[in-house]
C-alpha cells in the first residue's frame, strides 16, 4: 500500500465515522479521506474494489437528467416545429423518393432498452410518409466503415414490425465498398474528397435519425461520416487532425469537427437533408446495477450486498460468459431532447443538452488520472474489447472527455484498469489482429503506420469481402483506432495498466503494467513525484470534465 499522504489543500478532518460533509468542487467531485470507502471500478468484465490514496479526487457522473414523459410526442413536436426549415410534412409529396438513415449499433452504449429511440422515431416517420403518399422508402444503417449489423441486431433496433416489412431489400447496411453504391459529390478547397451513399444522394429527401451519445457525434458527421467511404473518411481520420483536436469532444476546438463541417457543406449543397437529433440521459443501469453510479460513501447495506453478490458471481464465471452477461444488460437511457430540421441548428441544441448531462466542473489538472476500463466501447458491441480497443478507450475516449484543458497534466501518468487479454474477435476484427501482431512490433508511430500500411490494409480484398459480406470492421479501421489515441499519446507521459494479465500486450501498446492499482500508483509516483495530484474518473456512465 502506498503511504497515504494528505495534500496541503485538503483539510484534515477528525477521524470520526459517519456521514460528514466532504470538500466538493462540484456535486460530483469527492475527495478521498481517511474514512472514505473503497471505490468500485471496472476492469473489463470484472469489478475492482480499491482503496485510493487520501486526497484523491473522484469525479462522478451527474445524475440522469429527467427523461421526457412522452418521447413520441416530443418527436412529433420536433418534426412539426423544425429549426431552420419547413415542417417535415410540408416537404413530402406523393411519388418522391425518401431515404431514412439511422445511426448504427455503436450508439448508444450499451444498446438501450427496447423500444430503441430510433424505433420510436422511424415508426412515426413511416406513418407520416405513408400518410403523404410516399412509398419509395429505404432505411439505411449509417455504419460507415464499421461492421454491418446482423439481422437480429437490426430487428432489435427498429422493432419487428419495421424489420419484417423492410428487411433486407429496403432496410440494410451502408456498403462503402460497393463499386456502384457511392457517388462523388466533390472536393473541399482543402482537397478533401466527399463520396456519399448513392441511394441517399439520389433521394429527393434524406432523413437522418441520430443518437447523440457524446458531443463528437451528430451534426454534419452523421451523413458525411456515416454514409461515406474510405477515401472520404481518411481525410480526417488521420493523426494530424486528431492531434489538432483539443479535444475531439469539444466541437469548437476540434479539427476533426472543422474538417467534417467543411465536407458537410458540400454534402448539404448537393442533398436535401432533414436532420433529427436526439439526446439521451445517462441512466445506464437499471435498479439492480445502479449502485455502480453511486458515491461509495453513500452505499446502503443493500448496495454493498449487490456489489458483493455481483463480484462473487463474476468471479465464478468464465470470461466469455461474463462478456455475454454484460452485453445483454440493456441501458435504461431515456430521451431528454429531440430536435429536427437544419443540421447545424439542430446539432447546436443537442450538443448543449449533452454538455448539460456530462460536464462536471473541476479545478485544476492532475498528475495522475485513474480510469477503469469497462467491457464495452463503440466498436465491440456483442464482441471482445481487444487490446487496440483498450487503447482507444484510454488514450482516445477517456483522455478526450474534457473541455478546456485535459484532466491530466502534460507528461502525467494515466492509469487504466483492465486485464489487457490478448483476445480478438475473428469475425468482427480480423484486420485488428494483423495490425496488432504484424505492425505494432515494427512501429507505434501513427504517421509511419499511415504512410506505410494503411492503404495496404484498406485495399486487402479479404478484409473488404469480410466487411461487405460478413460482420467485420473495414481493413483500415484498426488504423483509425490507433490515430484516435494520438492526441492522448502525445500528451500522456506514461500509461500504466493495472491488473494486466500478461506483459506483452501492454508492451506492444507502449505501456507499463502493474499487478494492482496500488502498485500502479506507486510506479506513477516515481514518475511524477512523491506528492501527486490524483484524480479518478468514475465511469461508466460517461463523465466529462470542464477543467478550470
Amino acid at each position, binding site marked *: 500500500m502506498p503511504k497515504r499522504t494528505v495534500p496541503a489543500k485538503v483539510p484534515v478532518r477528525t477521524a470520526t465515522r459517519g456521514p460528514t460533509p466532504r470538500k466538493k468542487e462540484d456535486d460530483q467531485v469527492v475527495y478521498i479521506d481517511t474514512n472514505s470507502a473503497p471505490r468500485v471500478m471496472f476492469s473489463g468484465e470484472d469489478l475492482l474494489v480499491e482503496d485510493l490514496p487520501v486526497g484523491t479526487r473522484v469525479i462522478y457522473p451527474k445524475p440522469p437528467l429527467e427523461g421526457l414523459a412522452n418521447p413520441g410526442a416530443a418527436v412529433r413536436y420536433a418534426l412539426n416545429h423544425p429549426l431552420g426549415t419547413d415542417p417535415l410534412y410540408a416537404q413530402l409529396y406523393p411519388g418522391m423518393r425518401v431515404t431514412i438513415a439511422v445511426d448504427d449499433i455503436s450508439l448508444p452504449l450499451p444498446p438501450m432498452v427496447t423500444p430503441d429511440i430510433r424505433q420510436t422515431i422511424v415508426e412515426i416517420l413511416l406513418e407520416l410518409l405513408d400518410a403523404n403518399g410516399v412509398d419509395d422508402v429505404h432505411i439505411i444503417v449509417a455504419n460507415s466503415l464499421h461492421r454491418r449489423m446482423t439481422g437480429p441486431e437490426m430487428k432489435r433496433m427498429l422493432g419487428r414490425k419495421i424489420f419484417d416489412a423492410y428487411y433486407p431489400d429496403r432496410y440494410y447496411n451502408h456498403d462503402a*465498398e460497393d*463499386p456502384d453504391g457511392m457517388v462523388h459529390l466533390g472536393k473541399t478547397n482543402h482537397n478533401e474528397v466527399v463520396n456519399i451513399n448513392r441511394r441517399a444522394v439520389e433521394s429527393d429527401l434524406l432523413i437522418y435519425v441520430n443518437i447523440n451519445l457524446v458531443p463528437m457525434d451528430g451534426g454534419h458527421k452523421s451523413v458525411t461520416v456515416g454514409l461515406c467511404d474510405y477515401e472520404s473518411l481518411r481525410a480526417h481520420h488521420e493523426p494530424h487532425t486528431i492531434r489538432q483536436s483539443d479535444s475531439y469532444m469539444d466541437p469548437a476546438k476540434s479539427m476533426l469537427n472543422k474538417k467534417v463541417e467543411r465536407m458537410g457543406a458540400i454534402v448539404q449543397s448537393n442533398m436535401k437533408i432533414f436532420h433529427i437529433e436526439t439526446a439521451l440521459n445517462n441512466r445506464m443501469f437499471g435498479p439492480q446495477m445502479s449502485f455502480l453510479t453511486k458515491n461509495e460513501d453513500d452505499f446502503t447495506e443493500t448496495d454493498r450486498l449487490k456489489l458483493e453478490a455481483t463480484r462473487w458471481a463474476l468471479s465464478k464465471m468464465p470470461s466469455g460468459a461474463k462478456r455475454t452477461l454484460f452485453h445483454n444488460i440493456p441501458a435504461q437511457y431515456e430521451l431528454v431532447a429531440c430536435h429536427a430540421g437544419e443540421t447545424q441548428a439542430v446539432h447546436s441544441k443537442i450538443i448543449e443538452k449533452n454538455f448539460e448531462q456530462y460536464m462536471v466542473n473541476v479545478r485544476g489538472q492532475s498528475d495522475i488520472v485513474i480510469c477503469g476500463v469497462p467491457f464495452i466501447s463503440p466498436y465491440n458491441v456483442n464482441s471482445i474489447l481487444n487490446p487496440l480497443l483498450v487503447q482507444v478507450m484510454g488514450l482516445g475516449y477517456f483522455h478526450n472527455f474534457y473541455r478546456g484543458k485535459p484532466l491530466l497534466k502534460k507528461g502525467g501518468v494515466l492509469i487504466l484498469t483492465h486485464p489487457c487479454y490478448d483476445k*480478438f474477435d*475473428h*469475425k468482427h476484427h*480480423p484486420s485488428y*489482429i*494483423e495490425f496488432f*501482431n504484424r505492425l505494432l512490433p515494427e512501429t507505434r508511430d501513427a504517421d509511419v503506420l499511415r504512410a506505410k500500411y494503411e492503404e495496404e490494409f484498406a*485495399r*486487402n*480484398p*479479404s*478484409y*473488404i*469481402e*469480410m466487411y*461487405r*459480406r*460478413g460482420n*467485420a470492421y473495414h481493413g483500415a479501421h484498426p488504423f483509425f483506432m490507433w490515430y484516435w489515441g494520438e492526441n492522448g499519446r502525445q500528451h500522456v507521459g506514461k500509461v500504466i495498466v493495472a491488473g494486466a494479465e500478461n506483459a506483452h500486450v501492454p508492451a506492444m501498446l507502449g505501456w507499463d503494467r502493474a499487478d494492482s492499482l496500488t502498485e500502479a500508483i506507486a510506479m506513477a509516483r516515481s514518475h511524477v513525484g512523491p506528492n501527486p495530484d490524483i484524480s479518478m474518473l468514475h465511469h461508466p456512465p460517461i463523465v466529462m470534465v470542464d477543467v478550470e
Partner: protein
Amino acid sequence: MFMAADTYSRRMFNDVFFRYYKGESEDRLRYLSEELFENVLKDAIFPGAYELVDKSKRLGLRQVLVTGAIDFTVMPLIRHLGFDHHVCNHLEFVDGRATGRLRPPVMAAATKASWMRTYAEKEGLNLSDCFAYSDSMSDLPMLSVVGHPAAVNPDFRLRNTAMQHDWPILDLR
C-alpha cells in the same frame, strides 16, 4: 467414400475419384464438361466469389487459379471468371481414352505450394504480397506460403487452423 478419402489425403482422393473417368473418351469428356459448368458449377459459384474476383481485379491484382480439378472441367470456369493464369491437373489419355490416372505433376497439397513458389520466382512476385484463398484443409501448404492467406467457407479442420493462425475467414455465400 470420397469424403473419407479427402479427409485422409487429397492425393488418395484424386486416386479414387479420377478412376471413375477410366475408359471415357476425351471428346465426350470435353463435351460433358461444358454441360457440367452450365448446369451445375455456374450456379454453385457463391455471389461473394464474383465480388472478390472483381475487387481484386480493380485493385490490379493478378488472378491465378491453382486447382486440383482437371483441365476440361475448369476451363469454362476460368473463362467465366476471367483468371489471368491457371494450373490444374490433366487426365492421362491413351488412344483417346482416359486411363483414370492423372498426368504428373499432380496438383495437390504440397505440390500447389511448390508450383506457386516456382511461379512467383519466374514472374518476379513476392509471395509475401500475395493472397491465397481456399476452402479445404488440403490446401494448407498453399495458404502457408503467401503473406495473406484466407479460408473461404472452410471445412471444419481449416476453420480451426485459420482461427489458430488468425487468418481471415470469409463467407462468400
